[in-house]
């Protein structure tokens, strides 16, 4: 009874198709937005904002991109970190080397990544599932190799481009963690709204049709060629913007080492734990994976104090990996649709609560 749809009459298709047809959902969303824009900068410390929330938002954006491809269009990618890397270098080359405006650099990062994504997405037209996963794995290695071996990109083996001070239009210097947080938040919110609209309209339906039954989708007149490549393009665009953004606001450099294969797996883990085919799931999964190491180190630190032994950092790192793997197996078996599905189950439960009918 707390969360109810009773008595809410939608009298036009426009109202029924609104993003949040239920008032409570709408108000909750406004409240979260207000909290994100006002409360977080006031309440959270610089460490929390700069060290956790900003990378969380960037990873959520990348996970969202991967979710379009894997959760909505049903195509697996193990090379998404590499697409982030492409975005990171593209953004910094544009911004630092050619002094392009900041937001245009991010847009350019997305577009370059989208182009590379389409290139590596072409095998999806011939192969599916496991084999496609392996061919996107090749993308990961090829892109890493190109970045470290083409001198023009990052200047050779270490391939690092430092981020110069961030300015928008030469007058707003983005320097403090809070300012970087606002930049990240604005980009991420805008792209999330865009993505939410995308998946609820014609394009999103075409993707889901391909995911559920590609033969039938083609018989409905959906061009597999166009929509699979579009999925790779949009997905890599998001990854590219996320890569550029995180290099601007968190790493303070574009560095190929950050965008390794393990990050690809982590992104996949985020959408498995968070929820395939769910926008909310991308956020939940990213938040979960970003917060997990902190939670584990706090927990093990506490345990260490109790038993009187020091917990070493390599033990922490290994425990983190084990928990990560264990969670993925757990979710694949118990709740393949992830945290987003659990949230939905809870909402369905609250609809009738406390009455059992």
């Amino acid at each position, binding site marked *: 009874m707390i969360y109810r749809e009773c008595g809410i009459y939608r009298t036009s*298709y*426009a109202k029924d*198709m609104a993003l949040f047809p239920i008032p409570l959902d709408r108000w909750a969303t406004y409240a979260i937005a207000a909290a994100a824009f006002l409360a977080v900068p006031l309440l959270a410390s610089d460490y929390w904002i700069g060290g956790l929330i900003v990378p969380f938002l960037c990873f959520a954006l990348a996970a969202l991109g991967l979710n379009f491809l894997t959760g909505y269009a049903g195509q697996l990618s193990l090379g998404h970190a590499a697409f982030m890397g492409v975005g990171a270098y593209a953004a910094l080359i544009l911004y630092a080397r050619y002094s392009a405006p900041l937001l245009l650099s991010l847009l350019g990062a997305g577009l370059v990544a989208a182009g590379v994504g389409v290139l590596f997405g072409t095998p999806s037209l011939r192969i599916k599932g496991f084999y496609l996963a392996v061919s996107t794995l090749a993308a990961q290695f090829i892109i890493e190799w190109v970045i470290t071996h083409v001198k023009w990109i990052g200047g050779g083996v270490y391939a690092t481009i430092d981020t110069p001070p961030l300015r928008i239009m030469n007058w707003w210097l983005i320097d403090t963690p809070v300012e970087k947080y606002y930049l990240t938040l604005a980009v991420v919110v805008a792209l999330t709204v*865009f*993505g939410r*609209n*995308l998946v*609820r*309209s*014609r*394009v*999103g*339906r*075409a993707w*889901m*049709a391909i*995911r*559920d*039954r590609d*033969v*039938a*989708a*083609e*018989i*409905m*007149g*959906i*061009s*597999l060629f166009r929509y699979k490549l*579009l999925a790779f393009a*949009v997905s890599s665009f998001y990854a590219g913007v996320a890569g550029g953004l995180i290099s601007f606001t968190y790493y303070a450099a574009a560095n190929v080492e950050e965008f390794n294969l393990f990050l690809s797996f982590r992104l996949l883990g985020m959408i498995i734990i968070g929820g395939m*085919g769910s926008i909310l799931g991308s956020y939940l999964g990213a938040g979960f994976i970003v917060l997990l190491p902190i939670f584990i180190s706090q927990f093990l630190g506490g345990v260490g104090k109790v038993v009187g032994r020091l917990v070493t950092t390599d033990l922490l790192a290994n425990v983190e990996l084990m928990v990560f793997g264990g969670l993925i197996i757990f979710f694949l078996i118990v709740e393949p649709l992830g945290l987003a599905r659990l949230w939905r189950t809870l909402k369905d439960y609250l609809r009738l609560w406390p009455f059992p009918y």
Partner: protein
Amino acid sequence: MVQSSATETGAHAGGVGGRPKLQVQGVHINFGGVKALQGVSLDLLDREILAIIGPNGAGKTTLINSVSGVYHPSPGRIVLDGENITYHSPARIAALGVARTFQNVALFKGMTVLENLLVGRHLHMRSGALASGLYWQLAQREEIRHRAVVERLIDFLEITHIRNALAGTLPYGLQKRVELGRALAMEPRVLLLDEPMAGMNMEEKEDMARFILDVNDEWGFPTILIEHDMGVVMDISNRVVVLDHGEKIAEGSPGHVRGDPLVISAYLGEEAAA
């Protein structure tokens, strides 16, 4: 023009005829050594329901697959409204107005009934990724317009109560009906129904037969219907084509085909025909 209703079953009714909408000309399909179709020809007239019957393995589904572009005949020609579509891709043939259902339901299981039908509107919509993502004016108006079209179909097929249910969770009979709706949403020039009543009980079959006749009344899509149940075929089709071992062995009105000795022997064996 008045179309045949359930009461004047099996007869040629007014409105059927004119230039053939779909022509299948001498189609051969081979799978390795298996000759699935050997020179089958047929014409589908405007507003008619043409039933294709035949024993298992006669090549009925193969014929539909070759019309919708899943297989390409060689030799042979498929002509839609005077245009040769023999070697077009399935998506291109769909864009030209050929809609179909599948023998084993092929709904998009993870999508709602509403979304399934909206996928049927895909070809009538224009919004690309940018317009969809911005969801401003153009895309929104388009969504609402096509939603209204789909809602009329949902009403027509009496599935209003399940419009927000996931297609994969529905009982089989309803899935078949949703799949018919998805094909109708395409506003096709030619409708291909591959065993729309397979695996249904009597009541569901009657419902489905009623819908097929109503669809024919309302829109008059020329329809090819594959069906095993002879009773249904006799009741709702204008003409019947009989396939056996990849060859056409009879064609004509239901009454005529029923008495054909070749058909009887294909279905019941040689002795029954003699």
